[in-house]
């Protein structure tokens, strides 16, 4: 019997906003899918595009980058830089025909536990509909 597909979504969450938002979702006992694998980073701009590429090529079905809302960055402007970086990365993915939809950048503040739960669910649903990451079973990488 074929096992049902449970996506794995590597999530880089900013310590000040999204990670706290995820915490809030947990302490408020909100349900969200177990597909999210959180990695706490000090700022979303700490996410080197290579981290995302590495996750993608290592078989992660989706990559979520969570940061503070524009204007709310703990370090003033980190998330604006993140936005540009992810824009470049998405353009690179797009040019060489990789699936940009597997990479998602979301702004979730520390008070938005429910938004975190909702985005997790939504993104998981989307990845489920897209199916497995095509790089997962490749021998030659």
């Amino acid at each position, binding site marked *: 019997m074929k096992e049902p597909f449970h996506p794995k979504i590597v999530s880089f969450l900013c310590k000040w906003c999204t990670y706290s938002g995820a915490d809030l979702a947990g302490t408020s006992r909100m349900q969200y899918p177990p597909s999210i694998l959180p990695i706490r980073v000090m700022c979303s701009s700490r996410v080197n595009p290579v981290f995302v590429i*590495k996750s993608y090529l290592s078989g992660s079905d989706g990559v979520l980058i969570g940061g503070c809302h524009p204007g709310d960055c703990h370090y003033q402007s980190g998330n604006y830089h993140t936005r540009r970086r992810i*824009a470049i990365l998405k353009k690179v993915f797009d*040019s060489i025909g990789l699936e940009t939809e597997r990479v998602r950048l*979301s702004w979730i503040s520390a008070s938005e536990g429910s938004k975190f739960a909702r985005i997790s669910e939504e993104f998981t649903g989307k990845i489920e509909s897209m199916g497995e990451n095509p790089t997962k079973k*490749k021998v030659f*990488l």
Partner: protein
Amino acid sequence: MKTTTAKSLRVSKKEGVRKPILAFLKSLLTDAVFDAILIPMQVPAGDSYAWVLVKDPSLLDQANPLAPIMPVQGAKALKSLTRKGEGNLKIAAVMRPCEVRASVELAKLNQIHLESITLMSVDCPGVLPVADYFENPGESEKRFNAMLSENRWGNGSMKSVCQICEQFSILPSSDFHFGLMTGSESSVVLISSSPKGQRVLKDRSLDGSVSLSDWENGIESIRQERKKERTKRFREVQSMVEGFDGLLKTFARCIGCHNCQSACPICYCRHCYFGSEASKLDSDFILKKAEQRGGLSFPLDRRMFHVGRMSHMSLSCVACGLCSDACPVSIPVADVFSFVADQTQRTFDYKAGEKREEPLPIRQYRLEEIKGVEEWVKDAEGVES
């Protein structure tokens, strides 16, 4: 404000453009307009070119501002020259436009100091792939010079990136320019486009009555042809790399030597993630990966290296094609990278190295821009947040 002055050098058809340009450069050295000139020079063995910082004017006879190959990017030479600051010497660097652009990009990245450097660009017919040249240097030299004297620009034996290069002539970022595509073959136009460039033309007894229109028209018509070819080639490249399988196929031969990175003028980081300790995995982890996939090929992470490099340097890529030249297994690295670079630079309406005053897109941001990168979702009340 940019001030442009143009003068011209007379060229006899027999001796070609090289001699009068070198004579002009020589006069700049002897009259102490510059203390030294950085220029490509044939190596004594006669089978390659190297960058030489020339102090002795007589050495300039062996120099060649239009070398048929580009074994080392000029920006790299300039980087080693000014790594520890600008110095007191007034130096002219005679370069191809892509080398000028790479220098400007590196200056923006604080790797080159351009304060004491006068960037002199030449109209560039392109260069031959080094592998082709090395097969028979003497013959290639002849072939290249014949192409030059017959004004056969846009020749198919040049590097593939050269064939579709649109920025092969004067740039807003260069101080001084040698215009060769005059059509008449009897003159080289000298254009100074900055205060530093003005110093070069000051007190030179040259023909001042130049009309630039012939040259400009020549450049423009080549540019239009290239533009068409570029669109066509990019489409081909796109269909080649399309999708993950396309990526696997295109870089299938990669041996993970990272030569493309070492040859790249833009990849300057002394501590690159690729090759660092952080990128190494322990054997248990590798074994697990192999188990999941049924097997795992070595060297590890070759695709990650290429895609990673695209995301790191494509905004500053000048499409010089040195990466393809450096590839020992003939992967068309430059074709893929220049295509991706074209796409990413377009996102920010940026052209690498074209203008000095344009800051690097990665260094700045606007409060509201690039819509659609973040996924804006409606919350329960239907308000976008």
